[in-house]
């Protein structure tokens, strides 16, 4: 079990790096979907005491929403907004990937200083969870397209989720489902907002929104 958990954790981190290095919007969305499925899988094996109905429902929700519903919504808005399929980052791809590695280093430094690591099965889980959070934040600020900000937000949420199931464990079921529902609504609303931005300005370049202020 621990081997699988370790493998999934490493894959989660590699998918973060892929997200930082990929140049195509569709590929980024598919990587987010992969992360969602991976998190559902991690949910199933993360607790030592074994499987429960609660974990099973959470896992199914995570796989269903993040693995299939969100990518469907995002790919549809890419199609409808007719955007260029390039990511157009402010920070170059190679720099971003090396930055991702630095984020892991910082996360390892932080996780050595927080007491939550005791409950983790593998010493790699907390650092990867933290660096997923950092990657999400980085994606939000370093990419030009509004769609990328949704993707960054989803990665950010994945990081928090990973941290939650690893470190805290006993979060009430309702709160976890509530968070998933919030994310769902957020993606839905941002999809609509993107369509509006697109209709109004013929692009979804969030950077140019700053020129609106008087």
């Amino acid at each position, binding site marked *: 079990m621990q081997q699988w958990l370790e493998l999934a954790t490493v894959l989660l981190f590699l998918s973060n790096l892929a997200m930082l290095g990929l140049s195509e919007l569709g590929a980024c969305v598919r990587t987010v979907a992969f992360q969602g499925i991976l998190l559902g899988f991690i949910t199933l094996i993360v607790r030592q005491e074994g499987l429960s109905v609660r974990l099973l429902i959470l896992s199914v929700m995570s796989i269903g929403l993040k693995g299939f519903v969100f990518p469907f919504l995002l790919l549809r808005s890419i199609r409808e907004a007719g955007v260029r399929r390039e990511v157009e980052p402010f920070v170059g791809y*190679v720099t971003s990937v*090396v930055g991702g590695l630095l984020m892991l280093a910082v996360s390892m430094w932080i996780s050595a200083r927080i007491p939550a690591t005791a409950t983790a099965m593998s*010493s790699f889980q907390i650092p990867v969870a933290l660096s997923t959070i950092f990657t999400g934040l980085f994606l939000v600020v370093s990419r030009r397209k509004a769609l990328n900000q949704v993707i960054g937000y989803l990665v950010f949420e994945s990081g928090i989720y990973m941290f939650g199931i690893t470190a805290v464990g006993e979060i009430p079921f309702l709160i976890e489902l509530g968070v998933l529902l919030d994310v769902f609504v957020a993606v839905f609303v941002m999809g609509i907002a993107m369509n509006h931005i697109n209709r109004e300005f013929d692009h979804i370049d969030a950077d140019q929104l700053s020129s609106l202020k008087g």
Partner: protein
Amino acid sequence: MNAQSIVYSASALLFSPLLLGVINRVKAIFAGRTGQPLLQTYYDLSKLFRKGAVYSTTSSWVFRAGPTVGLASVLVALAITPFGRVPALLNFPGDLLLLAYALGLMRFFTVIAALDTGSAFEGMGASREVQFSALAEPAFLLCLAALACKTQSLSLSTIISRMNFGLWAKDGPALAMIAVAFMAVLLAENARMPVDDPTTHLELTMIHEVMVLDHSGPDFAFILYSASLKLWVMGALLIGIILPVRTGNILLDFPATLLGMIALALLIGVIESVMARLRLLRVPQLLVGAGVIAVIALILILR
């Protein structure tokens, strides 16, 4: 040094051009052609050895020394490369650095021989080669460092002989990442497809081929042979990592590793057939990616 190591080294000298033949055959099958004979590289070598070399009047001894030094360096690299459980001819703590720098010396002399011709065209290839190898070398050394940490040894022979399936079961993710990064380095260093197209004759896209355009006759034979030996050296290391058959029976281990080499050549052929060359701007991303993966493997092993 023992008899097995000598047999292994002799087999490397004998069989390495075959790898290129296997790769070419796989590519031909994918393209629906019959393809050249499996032994074509041997025919090419014997043809080139019978020819005379032509030297430009503008080139100096550096140009003549290039292929010879290249072959000598790769022979040194071969002498410290283990083959599965068979130790290398020479092994001592720290020989993994010697391996990296023997290959580095080979590249250095190919590059300055190319620059010595004074052709702007070859200078362009040399510049690209140096740029990419500067990115591939850290990845290569990081892979070796991760392996050295894993097996608690600084000698390649010990590292490869301590690899086994138990280690894969225990540290699978880290070893898999090392293997992936090593594969990317192998493809880049041997001028194979996603980085360089060995069959291209379009000037703007060539890297390795353009540097050796002016060499002829035995000099070119040396270069061709060194290239196949280099592929063998790096392939033997990769197979030592991903196919650690260590039954202790030499009659079982040796053919297993040899078959692994052929399988690797098949894999390279498949990669070359299904992938297009990356844009030059994309190549550094691939190599930095390989380096980053090697760093993660190192972190996983060190923690």
